[in-house]
């Protein structure tokens, strides 16, 4: 309803930088954040066809200091997406292909005995592939729970303990785990408590016919598209700081909490669908993800504050892996997305 706003005033949605003279530092940081985000998205889109929402989701996760779980059938570009992101971000990248015989030491590293020419033996910690900025944990559900735990512990603590020493992981430390939802035989599905460690769970869908044309065009030429490194480690860390600085008003926080509570079947705010199909609702980490994701989304939408719309935008990615459904939901093929959509429709905005 822009008609209700005086032309001399600022219509909603316009960039804050044009609204009024803001504090210079805030203005600069917002502009830089938006520009960097836009550049990364554009650069990744040169290789990855479609999936704009997932690119935004992965970037949101990176900037909110979280880790992301990618779910999709084989061959739709999960690994390619992560590799491209690593190329664009100019960060140290390592890939771990999870297999049932993968041991924790293969991820975090191990202490080995070295003997020099003089016969002198020394113990040395060989760093594992987890010592990188971007870690692609490919098919994480194929490794044993023991190995999964090693990775998840590192994700939570941002450090690795080996040989009685704690080795801090370099920031940004960002784990992108992929999971194949089809071939479940011989896998070790992540328990809910460990799924909860992931900030977002993104679902990569199958591309459309136009998308497939574009993929074939890009990947069957003599030269595949090349991306440039457009963002360095320092800039990523600065963007993280910017995202954290966005203020959140209590009513908006209350809205995020209402959504979280509405996913709990025993709560009085639970919807009928939640009471019927959900065994356990989201943890407080879900609320944190809603707020932090909302902050990044607010900056992307030229806002200096978090709005309910931002919370709704990130709600599915933030909460879908935090709901534990019951047998009725399995029997009736009701997934967590449908339940969350119902929750979002029923939880009222604060007025």
């Amino acid at each position, binding site marked *: 309803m822009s008609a209700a*706003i005086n032309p001399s005033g600022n219509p909603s949605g316009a960039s804050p930088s044009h609204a009024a003279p803001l504090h210079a530092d805030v203005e600069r940081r917002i502009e830089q954040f938006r520009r960097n985000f836009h550049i990364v998205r554009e650069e990744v889109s040169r290789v990855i066809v479609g999936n704009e929402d997932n690119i935004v989701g992965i970037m949101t996760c990176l900037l909110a200091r979280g880790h992301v779980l990618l779910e999709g059938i084989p061959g739709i570009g999960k690994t390619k997406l992560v590799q491209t992101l690593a190329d664009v971000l100019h960060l140290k990248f390592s890939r771990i292909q999870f297999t049932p015989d993968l041991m924790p030491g293969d991820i975090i590293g191990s202490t080995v005995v070295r003997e020099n020419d003089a016969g002198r033996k020394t113990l040395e910690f060989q760093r594992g592939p987890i010592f990188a900025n971007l870690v692609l944990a490919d098919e994480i559900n194929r490794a044993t729970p023991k190995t999964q735990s090693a990775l998840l512990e590192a994700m939570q603590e941002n450090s690795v303990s080996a040989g009685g020493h704690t*080795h801090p992981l370099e920031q940004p430390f960002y784990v992108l785990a992929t999971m194949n939802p089809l071939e479940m035989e011989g896998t070790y599905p992540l328990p809910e408590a460990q799924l909860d460690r992931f900030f977002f769970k993104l679902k990569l869908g199958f591309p459309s016919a136009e998308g497939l044309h574009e993929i074939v065009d890009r990947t069957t030429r003599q030269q595949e598209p090349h991306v440039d490194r457009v963002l360095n480690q320092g800039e990523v860390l600065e963007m993280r700081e910017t995202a954290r*600085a966005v203020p*959140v008003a209590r009513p908006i926080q209350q809205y995020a909490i209402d959504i979280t509570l509405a996913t709990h079947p025993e709560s009085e705010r639970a919807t009928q669908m939640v009471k019927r199909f959900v065994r356990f609702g989201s943890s407080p980490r879900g609320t944190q993800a809603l707020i932090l994701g909302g902050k990044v989304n607010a900056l992307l939408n030229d806002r*200096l504050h978090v709005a*309910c719309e931002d919370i709704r935008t990130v709600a599915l990615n933030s909460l879908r892996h935090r709901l534990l459904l019951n047998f009725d939901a399995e029997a009736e093929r009701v997934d967590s997305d449908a339940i969350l959509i119902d929750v979002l429709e029923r939880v009222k905005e604060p007025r």
Partner: protein
Amino acid sequence: MTPEREAIGRALTRIERRLRLNHAVYAASLIAGLAVLALLAWRALRWIGGSAPTAAALVIVLAVLAAIVLVFLLLRYLFTRESGPARAAGEADTRAALNNELASAYWFLHAGARSEWIAAHLQHAAHTATGLEAARLIPVRLPLTSGAALAVAVVALAALWFAPPLAPAGALAPAGLLSAEEVAQVRALSELAEAMPDSEPARRLEAALRTLQDATTPVEAQRRALAQANDAVQQLRLEAASTRERLQRLSDALRGQPGMEQVAEALARGDAQTAAQRMAQLQAQSGQTQAGKAPPEGAGASEAEPADSAGDRGLEQALQEATAATGATDEAGAAELARQEAVDRLKEIARELEASARVNEAWQRVRGPQLTAGQSQGLSASRFAEQTAAPSMPSPGSGETPMEGGTMFRAAAVAEGDGRTEQEGGTRAGDALGDAPADALLGTRGERLEAQLGKQGIAGEEQDDDGEEQNKSWYYAQSQQQKALARLRTVQAAGRFAAAESEAGEGISIQHRQIVKDYFMNLREGAR
């Protein structure tokens, strides 16, 4: 007060004022709705008048329900209405699509939060709030549904106000209840009823028929008269049936009397007219035989007495006296008198029966079928349910429930234990005796860890990846014993492998095995 706070506060005050105005308009519309509803109901009742009591009752019920809903809406609105700057900020955010900007700003101001980002946000929100036009953002108007409902109610009220009455009382009543043909039949029936001997049902029937013929009688009164007429006709029919039964009993009594056979036969048929004629013939024959004799005293008085007055004695008594008379002069006179009385009484009964039959036939032509149908329609809901309900079925647990393709039984869910009764040993499910033997140890015997591993010392100091020097002077390595054991096992395994290979190859040594194999392969190829 900062300029941002002032600008935001001013804008929210303007918006709050407009919201209050809107609230007042909405409350007024609800009250107006109540008034229009009352007028509408009153006018609708006037319009319907007394012609359609069902419609009138429906109007009253609907009006009461609508009034309850309106009062509920009004009370809920008055008690749950929120106001204040926070509400104004939320409303402005929603209406101007500001994405919670003003609500957030108001909260930051209210909570006193301070930071560079919040200051920037407040500055932006103040600029937005200054540009808001409260009058255009929140125009004073009714909600669409309320306005539409009120408009429809006013239009309906106007239509009812100027509409002619649905039905003037009384004018449409005859046409509504009885057709013209039926009215003519009622008139004929009334004449028949007037011709009937005087009795209580006949009087009631006449009164009811008079009411039905009156064109000014309301429909409801006509309906009542119709029911009364029907009751009167039923009463007449019952009395006629009772009279015939009485005649039947008299017939049985007279059957054995000499000379009265024909009278008894006519009475048995219920034909009082014939019986009276036969009785008159008997009287005439008796008069001829008694012609020379003086007439009995009091006969003149008897003749002068109307037939109806003899009804006190009753027909039965008169007939008994007539048949019991002997040849004596006095008795013959009394018999003559009794016979005359019986004849009169029988004629009277014949008239009554005939009139009753005519009235009944005429009534059947007027309303008989309709009344029968009306009676069947009056079946109560519970009675109807009793009549139409399916016969009750036994419980499935009884094993007697008829089902398509078989009979459903419940089976026990727990099997009995082996060789014991349920009381002794429990059941197969959940058999927990607690004396099960321990499982056998799994795996082969292993060496102690201390024997397999030995501490290996490291001379000197090593540098950690962190850069800090630490003493890590030992680590675990294979012990001497373990090394020797491993070598021994390797040698033993080689020997066992050679032995196994030679046994599996039926005594052919390994070096010759390929030659033998090739020979037989070639042999087979040659045989082909």
